[in-house]
């Protein structure tokens, strides 16, 4: 697949906690979720996280965040992009995923493990995301999520 994905690496360092940043714009098409996750995971393989956490926790959580942003934030509108920014330090990795949507209130998303919801096809994304990283925060508008994975 020819890909429009271009990963930018920005060294930071110079005494600060963040060693480098990764920047990636992802077109709002779900077919780019896998390739975008591959690009970011490849650059994070030798950092703060163990290879196992990169291959499973980071990949799965980033796929969830991207899919939510593309499908619900940008409504798969090809003229919009989802912006990914990764900040990497020795102690943690922080991933920001931002869409152009109106945002949502994460507090009102129902628990997908309740008996009445267990056999539903959808509605597990946020739950899975929260389960796989150490910390999840949203901006006030609800169109940008920040995932923190601590070293280890």
């Amino acid at each position, binding site marked *: 697949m020819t890909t429009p994905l271009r990963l930018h690496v920005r060294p930071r360092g110079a005494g600060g906690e963040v060693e480098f940043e990764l920047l990636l714009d992802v077109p709002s098409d779900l077919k780019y979720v896998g390739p975008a996750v591959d690009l970011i995971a490849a650059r994070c393989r030798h950092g703060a996280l163990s290879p196992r956490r990169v291959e499973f926790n980071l990949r799965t959580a980033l796929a969830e965040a991207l*899919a939510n942003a593309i499908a619900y934030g940008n409504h798969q509108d090809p003229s919009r992009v989802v912006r990914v920014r990764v900040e990497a330090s020795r102690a943690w990795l922080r991933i920001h995923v931002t869409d152009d949507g109106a945002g949502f209130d994460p507090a009102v998303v129902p628990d997908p*493990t309740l008996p009445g919801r267990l056999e539903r*096809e959808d509605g597990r994304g946020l739950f899975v995301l929260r389960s796989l990283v150490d910390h999840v925060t949203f901006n006030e508008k609800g169109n940008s999520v920040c995932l923190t994975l601590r070293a280890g």
Partner: protein
Amino acid sequence: MGFSLTQKKPGVVMVGVDGQLIVGNRQELKQKVLDALDGGTNKFVIDFSRTGYIDSSGLGVLVSLSKKIREQGGDLRLAGLNDDLQTLFELTKLDTLFSIAKTPEEALAAFSP
């Protein structure tokens, strides 16, 4: 990367998931299994021995396929989950919805005869 369907014994198809099962490729898996179901197969083992990660869309497609297969009197079993994937099924309580075997061979053996 991709999905392979192999008939392992009469009426039972093994589906290998190579790489990942996520939002970008779940539809392909769904279609392949539904085509086999239309063709008369109603017992399936999904083998995750070569799978790196599964997102919530992938989990969702397994839930909907399982429901469709059971409606047609069949069954869908899962096998070969690594520790992380097993934990994902436990966290989402989907381990209560599926028969999960350690190996694809065990899952196959559970389909009699």
